[in-house]
């Protein structure tokens, strides 16, 4: 099928999943006992005031109507009222989302930048020193609890060595364009601000990236080993082409596309672990906000965060699928 059709089919595929997710989460949030209106108004509100707010919040309508109203609200940018921050959840999400986007992106970049060469190295030096080391690293990366690693990194680098900040993102750069501190600093060539933001993001990004790094290393290694055994590589070798050329030209390209797969596959890993890492580093992102909302039982916020995470996850998977389908036409037939 053509690329366009493939694209359309993939996009349509997400919609029922997201709708289903929204229904699921919404049902969960409305199942809880307790009166959000009463909580919002406080203990001294008269029954009349409570009834009025319930009406405004739509809590006296049947569940289906509430759901429809909620979804309608979503499209209008209204995610409901947060009892904890006392403003619309949409505003909270707008405020906290860039930090998480920045953290997960940097973590992913780090994982690829380190994992890819590590995987190649391991494959090229298969069953020798470098291979074993990288395999051990990969295993460790998958098994290490992310929040524990974050705590250890904090301990070593922030407390004992004192070279990196303990928590937080640091001050915002003077000019706000995207909300991503690193990008905003670069766009206006503000190097000092960039460096400060970098210092703050290093530890959380490294802690977060380790799982994906491990997966990328293992997958690249496995794929490269397989590729190097393939006929075309053997043929190229028998023609006397230098090994280095074979690796770079033929094999790496395929390894790269498998790395792409892992990016999509492990992005979920990354998003999930962001909840733990952001908590340890008090990184003011969506996940940190989500955890605080959870502990406070602020259900509108929890629903909002879940839906945004689901949407982000779906988008990333879609992008990966598109890229993959573009690179490797065979995939389209299997869709």
């Amino acid at each position: 099928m053509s690329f366009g059709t493939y694209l359309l089919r993939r996009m349509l595929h997400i919609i029922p999943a997201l709708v289903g997710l929204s229904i699921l989460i919404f049902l969960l949030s409305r199942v809880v006992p307790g009166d959000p209106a009463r909580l919002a108004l406080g203990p001294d509100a008269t029954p009349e005031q409570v009834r009025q707010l319930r009406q405004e919040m739509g809590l006296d309508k049947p569940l289906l109507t509430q759901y429809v109203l909620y979804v309608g609200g979503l499209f209008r940018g209204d995610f409901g009222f947060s009892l904890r921050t006392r403003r619309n959840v949409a505003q909270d999400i707008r405020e906290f989302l860039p930090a998480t986007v920045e953290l997960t992106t940097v973590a992913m970049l780090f994982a690829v930048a380190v994992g890819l060469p590590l995987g190649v190295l391991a494959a090229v030096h298969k069953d020798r020193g470098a291979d074993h080391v990288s395999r051990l690293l990969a295993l460790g990366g998958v098994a290490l609890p992310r929040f524990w690693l974050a705590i250890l990194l904090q301990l070593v680098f922030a407390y004992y060595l004192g070279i990196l900040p303990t928590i937080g993102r640091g001050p915002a750069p003077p000019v706000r364009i995207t909300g991503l501190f690193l990008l905003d600093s670069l766009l206006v060539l503000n190097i000092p601000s960039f460096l400060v933001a970098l210092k703050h993001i290093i530890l959380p990004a490294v802690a977060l990236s380790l799982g994906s790094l491990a997966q990328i290393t293992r997958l690249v290694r496995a794929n490269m080993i397989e590729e190097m055994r393939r006929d075309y590589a053997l043929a190229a070798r028998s023609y006397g082409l230098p090994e280095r050329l074979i690796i770079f030209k033929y094999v790496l390209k395929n390894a790269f596309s498998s790395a792409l797969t892992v990016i999509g596959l492990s992005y979920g890993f990354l998003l999930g672990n962001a909840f733990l890492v952001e908590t340890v580093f008090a990184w003011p992102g969506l996940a940190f906000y989500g955890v605080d909302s959870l502990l406070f039982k602020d259900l509108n916020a929890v629903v909002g965060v879940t839906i945004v995470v689901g949407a982000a996850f779906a988008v990333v998977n879609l992008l990966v699928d598109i890229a993959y389908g573009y690179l490797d036409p065979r995939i389209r037939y299997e869709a």
Partner: protein
Amino acid sequence: MLVLTALLVLPGQVLSQAPITFNYIEQQIITASDPAAAVDESSLIAAINLYDPLLYPNVEQGSMAPRPHLAESWTLSPDGRVYTFTLRRGVKFHSGRDLTAADVVFSMDRALRLKKGFSWVWTPVLEPGAIKAVDPYTVRMELKQAYAPFLGSLLLFFILDKDLVMSNIRPGPYGEFGDYGTAFLERADAGSGPYKMERFDRATEMVMARFDGYWRGWKPNQISRVSFKTVTEEATVKTLLLSGQADMVNQWLTVQGFRELRQAAGIVVKEDPSVQLFHLEMNTKKPPLDNVKVRQAIAYAFDYDIAIQQIFEGATKARGPVPVRVPGWNSNLPVFARNTAKARQLLAESGVPASALSIEYAYVVTLPLERQVGLLLKNNLEAIGFKVEIRGEPWARIVDLATKAETTPHITAIFDTLKYPHVDSHTYGMYHPSCWGTFRCMSFYENPKVTQTLEAARRATKPEEQMRLYQAAQAMIVADAPSIYVANPLHRIAFRDYVKGYRYVGLLGFDVAYYDFTIVK
């Protein structure tokens, strides 16, 4: 010529001093930025710095007693009902307006109508309209009857900018006053205090900037910018202070934490006896705790000595709800000590079957000390046949749960510092039904005789009569055992050694008035 040079140089000197930023760490979020709704420490600190109260504690003399502040002087009518305050002139709000009697009248009416925060101290004796502006700088308050704690409570009466609030009201339940500016005050301040609210992210930080027009004036080395950050994890809080990224951290660190800080160079740990009560509030409306013998049994089962000596390390044992240093404290109250046999006997007498002895203990998840006490309690109670479940909650959620008796846990660990310098704070303020719905009254205690006694105490005109009644009330309360009174802990706080001017007099929040500090590096 000389005058000109002087004029050029002097302002230059003040201006050339680099702005001093102060980083303060609190382990709880500011739950209310509206001073009329402030009850807990973080909210009170915000109120004290952004607003001015009518009277101020006499911190300069190390006393909690009220002294003139926005009110320069006052008179009291012979029958003790009418207070007339003369206001200081030249006080400016952050908006630039002058503070006048109209603002005072507005602020009190507002507090009474909103019915949040400490309004319950005033609602028994004041109604909206009972406060009048006699002239722009004179306010007359006509109380329904004489009222013992009134003057002391005015330390918590913060004055708001009437025009600013009224020009920012939204539709709401208060008739012509709409929402009374509640939504507006979530993001801005309407105060006259030494600092203005520059930015407020409820979940993380409040930034306050110096208000140059503050009526008390500014001296060199005072703080020009405050970053009030909420950081819940103790390890992080300690690291921030040790590395210098924070200049002062709050009192809620563990004893071990303060010990660690004391040993570090460049850090001062200040210890003072407090007027703070640590107690375990028992919800008297939730079975099996609605049975007084069950509560008494629990009070006899708890191991106070271990708690005081080993968990608190340096606290005074509590006797009743009123902290030991406060005038009016009843020194003849019975002392509870661990007596397992008596506890078992009381349980048997209560008639409650063993299967119903299942309770929940809630604590603030960021305070490990409360967790330690909880585990001690669990250990003690399970020895006499209870089943105890322990649950940690964020402070904001405990404040939320406290609004209704159904959602309040069986037992909650609470620190309650003296709010205003009168024994009324820890008697009426905790055990009169009008206070239900806040974390101070999670016992939902209701004893008509005690209620009567407390109301009579408030009305008493002669000091001896007042104290007698308050002490009688304490005796009755303790007999009913609505709480397990554990300790009056030592107050500890830590800051860098270049922070000068810290004074602790006991009242909650007034020791963290940033205006009082000077930075000498």
